[in-house]
């Protein structure tokens, strides 16, 4: 088979992958690609319309660099057709690595993101002040486009099988997930970020980015648009070297995958966890089993860690108003440590989600699912309460507010019990599967948007249930005395504990009698 034939075949395959599949998935993809095209057109319009501004070249350089970085990460986040076209799927066919490389680059040009990028780059190329600078800008656009295309393929190669060691792959997945979460947060705060990017900050950003490889070609473009031809050529040369390096890394990764040289390293678990003995001493066997397994799952599964990490910025943002109290050394700030437990409430509404179809192991092994549900909730409570205790002790040591330590822990326990009670109900009634191998939004469970909606409602209900106890304990601690705070806190914990026990019992019984429905909800849509 000739290289041209293979390229045509692989490009056709990519097109088919993008246009086929379940209707909802295809619809989401169409939306994603339409958004990419619109972003490209919008970016091009911005480049052209803002050409007259004094710091236009700073803007051009900065956004071009951001575009390049985004391109390196996007395939890892989007999944779909790109991650399906992996090298190892071609390794049995009678073709060479070189042919495959050409075909893969060809396939990368299929899709709206590349077209959108090309539109932006064409607009950038139009920013030349003369024939030479326009030619350099056109070259910059070409090098940028090639770099992002090859870079994205390198990312896919590394993700699909280059990172065969599970720890490395899980680590990479965690990093990608956290970037995705932060990107999501940044997107929502986009308006403030644009406002924050004053000309001087743009200039500072450019001065940093120009020393990084991803900034070399964008810097060349920035200089060419200012008419600095010589230095633009130098930076463009550096950009070409960077492109060569990325290409070589990709070529080697491809060759390794194609020839099966990439090896897998298995993770060996030898040590027994220290906390296991403590849990075994206080919990019945079935609860202990579920409690320990859930703790291991949270520790070892990057999706769990990504969830926790992803909500950290939100907790930090919520805690920011307390910054002044910390600075002043106000002892009441110790009570704010109870907020650290909130993170558990955010991540507990779908406790079977990471298990997915493996829920069948629980369903087959445990005649009664109540201990499984309880163990899962207790694992979340363990994760939630540890930072609260550490935070309270740390802040008490800093401010001297030791009397507030117990009330803050009681507030956290009360709120956690309320949140976990609601979580258990939502988890059992509206579970949905979280994909194991991709962060792609296209791969979803069987219940549409209902579980997400119920999770949101669950958070609100948890807030309503816990609010009286939390407010009363906080008020008693601040306005009367820490001792009264403890008394009110104990009552508050008793109130939410009663709710928690009731919900766990009824939900466990419901789950035991509705295994088929839960198995169905935790299966991938066929």
């Amino acid at each position, binding site marked *: 088979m000739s290289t041209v034939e293979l390229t045509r075949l692989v490009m056709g395959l990519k097109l088919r992958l993008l246009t086929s599949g379940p209707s909802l998935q295809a619809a989401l993809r169409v939306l994603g690609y339409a958004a990419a095209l619109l972003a490209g057109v919008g970016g091009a319009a911005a480049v052209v319309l803002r050409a007259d501004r004094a710091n236009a070249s700073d803007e051009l350089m900065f956004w071009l660099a951001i575009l390049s970085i985004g391109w390196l990460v996007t395939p890892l986040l989007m999944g779909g057709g790109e991650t399906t076209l992996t090298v190892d799927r071609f390794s049995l066919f009678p073709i060479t690595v070189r042919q495959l490389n050409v075909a893969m680059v060809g396939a990368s040009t299929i899709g709206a993101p590349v077209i959108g990028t090309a539109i932006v780059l064409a607009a950038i190329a139009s920013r030349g002040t003369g024939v030479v600078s326009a030619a350099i800008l056109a070259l910059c656009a070409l090098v940028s486009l090639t770099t992002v295309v090859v870079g994205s393929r390198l990312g896919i190669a590394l993700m699909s099988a280059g990172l065969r060691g599970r720890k490395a792959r899980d680590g990479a997945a965690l990093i990608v997930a956290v970037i995705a979460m932060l990107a999501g947060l940044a997107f929502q705060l986009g308006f403030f970020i644009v406002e924050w990017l004053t000309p001087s900050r743009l200039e500072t950003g450019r001065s940093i980015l120009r020393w990084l490889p991803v900034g070399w070609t964008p810097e060349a473009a920035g200089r060419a648009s200012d008419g600095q031809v010589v230095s633009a050529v130098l930076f463009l040369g550096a950009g070409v070297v960077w492109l060569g390096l990325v290409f070589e890394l990709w070529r080697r990764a491809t060759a390794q995958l194609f020839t099966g040289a990439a090896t897998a390293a298995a993770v060996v*678990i030898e040590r027994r966890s220290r906390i296991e003995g403590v849990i075994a001493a206080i919990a019945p066997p*079935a609860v202990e089993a579920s409690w320990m397994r859930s703790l291991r799952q949270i520790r070892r599964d990057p999706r769990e860690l990504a969830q926790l990490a992803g909500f950290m910025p939100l907790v930090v943002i919520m805690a920011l108003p307390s910054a002044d109290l910390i600075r002043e050394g106000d002892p009441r700030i110790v009570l704010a440590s109870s907020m650290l437990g909130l993170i558990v409430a955010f991540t507990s509404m779908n406790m079977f989600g990471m298990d997915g*179809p493996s829920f069948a192991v629980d369903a087959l092994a445990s005649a009664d699912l109540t201990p499984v549900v309880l163990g899962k909730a207790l694992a979340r409570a363990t994760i939630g309460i540890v930072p609260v205790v550490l935070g309270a002790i740390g802040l008490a040591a800093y401010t001297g507010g030791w009397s507030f330590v117990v009330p803050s822990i009681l507030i956290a326990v009360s709120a956690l019990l309320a949140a976990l009670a609601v979580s258990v109900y939502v988890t059992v009634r509206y579970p949905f599967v979280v994909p194991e191998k991709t962060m792609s939004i296209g791969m979803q469970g069987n219940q549409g948007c209902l579980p997400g909606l119920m999770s949101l409602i669950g958070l609100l209900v948890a807030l309503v249930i816990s609010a009286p106890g939390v407010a009363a304990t906080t008020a008693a601690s601040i306005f009367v005395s820490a001792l009264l705070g403890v008394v009110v806190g104990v009552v508050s914990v008793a109130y939410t504990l009663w709710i928690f026990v009731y919900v766990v019992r009824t939900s466990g019984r419901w789950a035991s009698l509705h295994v088929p429905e839960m198995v169905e909800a935790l299966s991938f849509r066929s």
Partner: protein
Amino acid sequence: MSIEWAVQVQGLHKRFGDKHAVAGVDLAVPAGTFYGLLGPNGAGKSTTLSMITGLLRPDAGSVMVSGMDVWADPVAVKASIGVVPETLLLFERLSGRELLDYVGRLRRLDRGTVTERREQLLDVLGLTDEADKLVADFSQGMRKKISLAASLLHAPRVLFLDEPFESVDPISVRHIRTVLDTLVDGGATIVFSSHVMATVQSLCDHVTILDHGAVVASGTMATVCGDGSLEDAFARAVGAENLDAASLSWLAGQHPVAPPPPPPSPPLPPSDSQAVGESDVDG
């Protein structure tokens, strides 16, 4: 003497959209037997087993396991059965040992018993050296074996196995057969589906053949097979006795192979006989 039934299934139906996956299956599995469930791909074996084990709700029909109704009293039934499903859905981020510990403790076995049985099963199934690896790093055969170990930990009264020997090496197959024989000798019942006819024929006392969601043959091995092999009986039952290979004629004669040349004669040591022979040829 009345027969004690381990599993009784009556009028089991399941539809997936337009497809009638299981269309009125009746089964009666005597206690203490090795019972084979056969059928071509898509015949409804796994769907039937899922409904018998309580993982899939039937549209109609009843299932009794050890005299208890699976759908009226699922909690009691699950305590007495073990299951190795066809699609091995295990907790990927537990090690093999941790997984067995988890399942054993979930079944409320005490820690000492779990540890003892765990190590024995790992040893018999040849998994001791790999047991501290994450299940995610297990091969398909190892996953099958660890799943089997998990289903055996509580010594179930009825064990359901969906393709238990698929991807498992021959030595492990021998070991697994020994384990299963021991279980049946102890009075337990094993219901298993498989495509490997020789294994089914050598292991099972009774067999049922499903096709298109319905029972097409059922009974003791001797009744179903008659004078021939189980494979023949199976092909007869599902109507696939003769394959029309004419449409694949392009596969024939594509790579003609020349007959191998005769092996060269080994040089013979000089002797009287050789001398005589050479003399004969020359002559």
